[in-house]
């Protein structure tokens, strides 16, 4: 909504007679209702309402929904990073409402300069201050490659120490957290799992460090004694881009700690092999609610099969196992380097993976449905 474009109003030629009735009714709607309406709009539309009349001038500043995307969905045009940041900072500064239910910040960062994205810390602080219920921070990079110097999620203790208000409340109202292409420390994952009693959805996509940290976690036995029971968590989705993925153990402990979990999806980004995980080392427990598991990027190696078989054993409630043998660009780029046709290589690997997955499905005599793609 470019204000300049509105100098000539096309509707002046449109004499509708509903105005009189409307005039009375809009005055009946008190500010809370108008704020509820404004909260349903895109930020662009919400801000524009300030021009309607003096009554509307500050209403958008109480909006419960703030969504920033550097890509215009209708045109596909991408905003300059500097402008985007200025935009976010300005809006967050102007916001006056005590709470924001949903804060979404999506912007594409440069592969090499993501580390320079200072200021993001203050956005996270804002999310805490405004007691967000749903928070998404998505710093996607072209082609889905993890950046060389990624933005690192701030130290949680430092963040909490910024004011007494956030210190006592933290992220306690959080129900949904989605982080993509954010380097996240073990400690931070821990914090979210342990300190957000309402968390229902946790999605950490393409976090380079995640796997490494989870791996460290295994050695420190991050498992159940440390983790609180996550009673609200129903859906857990993790994407891991890693050169050395040995975190399956951590995932079983996570599942163990989430008694009401119904869906668990894990996506692996690279074709690096899993080390073999002995089932003796995995957490022994019974899970009553897990219905769906999905393993994407399945390549057909023993540790993956063991992981799936282990979950089938501990969760009699399981209905469906999705196995997706599709791998990402990462693998394709590697093939390119070796000069073979990526499609051919990919095809061979997928055929093998599918063959393994079907074999796995046959060994399970239970009622569980396998969906292999």
């Amino acid at each position, binding site marked *: *909504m*470019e*204000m*300049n*474009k*509105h100098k000539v*109003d*096309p*509707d*002046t030629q*449109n004499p*509708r007679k*509903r*105005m*009189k*009735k*409307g*005039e*009375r*009714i*809009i005055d*009946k*709607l008190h500010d*809370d*209702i108008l704020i*509820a*309406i*404004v*909260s*349903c*709009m*895109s*930020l*662009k*539309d919400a*801000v*524009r*309402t*300030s*021009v*309607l*009349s*003096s*009554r*509307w*001038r500050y209403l958008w500043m109480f909006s419960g929904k703030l969504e920033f995307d550097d890509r*215009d969905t*209708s*045109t596909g*045009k991408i*905003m*300059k990073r500097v*402008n*985007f940041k*200025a*935009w976010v900072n*300005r*809006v967050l500064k102007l916001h006056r409402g005590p709470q924001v239910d949903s804060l979404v910040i999506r912007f594409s960062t440069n592969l090499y300069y993501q580390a320079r994205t200072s200021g993001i810390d203050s956005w996270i602080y804002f999310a805490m201050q405004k007691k967000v219920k749903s928070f998404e921070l998505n710093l996607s990079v072209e082609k889905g490659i993890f950046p060389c110097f990624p933005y690192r999620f701030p130290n949680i203790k430092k963040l909490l120490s910024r004011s007494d208000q956030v210190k006592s409340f933290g992220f306690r109202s959080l129900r949904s957290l989605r982080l993509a292409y954010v380097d996240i420390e073990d400690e931070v994952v821990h914090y979210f799992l342990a300190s957000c009693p309402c968390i229902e959805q946790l999605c950490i996509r393409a976090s380079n460090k995640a796997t490494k940290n989870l791996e460290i976690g295994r050695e420190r036995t991050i498992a159940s004694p440390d983790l609180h029971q996550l009673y609200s968590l129903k859906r857990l989705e993790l994407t891991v881009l890693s050169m050395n993925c040995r975190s399956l153990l951590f995932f079983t402990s996570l599942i163990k700690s989430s008694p009401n979990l119904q869906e668990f999806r894990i996506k692996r980004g690279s074709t690096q092999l899993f080390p073999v995980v002995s089932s003796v080392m995995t957490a022994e427990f019974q899970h009553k609610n897990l219905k769906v598991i999905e393993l994407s990027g399945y390549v057909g190696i023993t540790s993956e099969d063991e992981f799936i078989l282990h979950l089938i054993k501990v969760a009699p409630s399981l209905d469906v196992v999705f196995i997706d043998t599709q791998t990402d660009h990462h693998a394709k780029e590697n093939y390119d380097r070796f000069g073979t046709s990526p499609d051919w290589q990919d095809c061979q690997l997928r055929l093998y993976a599918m063959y393994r997955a079907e074999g796995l499905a046959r060994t399970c005599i239970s009622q569980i449905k396998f969906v292999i793609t």
Partner: protein
Amino acid sequence: MAAETGTPTTLTLKSNDDELFSVAESAAILSVTIRNMVEDGCAGGVIPLDNVDGKTLASVITYMNGISAIPADEEKKKSYRDKFLSDKDFETLADMVLAANYLNMSCLMDAVSAKIAQVMEKKSVGWVRRKFGIENDYTPEEEAAVKEEHKWTFEGVETDDDN
């Protein structure tokens, strides 16, 4: 909830223009206001709803019955809500959002707010003023200043057609 067992309990609701409506208790308690009355045992006789007129209350009851007949399926409920609101004009929507607010029915409140927001979406300021009967009380200078203040919001963002 008072009587869940046996024959379905019916409540009588009275609008502020003295129209009476019968509605199943199971549907009526979508309104937290009514549910509280039922739980406090004040729903024996006629429940007066002083802030809702007959026309609006009839509409709200249609919604209550319709939505409570749909089993727990968020998709279906959403499409029912969309269809239910699709032919309502602004005046009706405004009455409904007031009623939903008074009756404390969050699902209807959210749906109607979203519907009104949708109508305003991507429209020019002039169109919205006209459609919603909003009186522009800015002086031309003030209006220009407010526009200027938020000009930055649109930098680098494509403009939408005003229609």
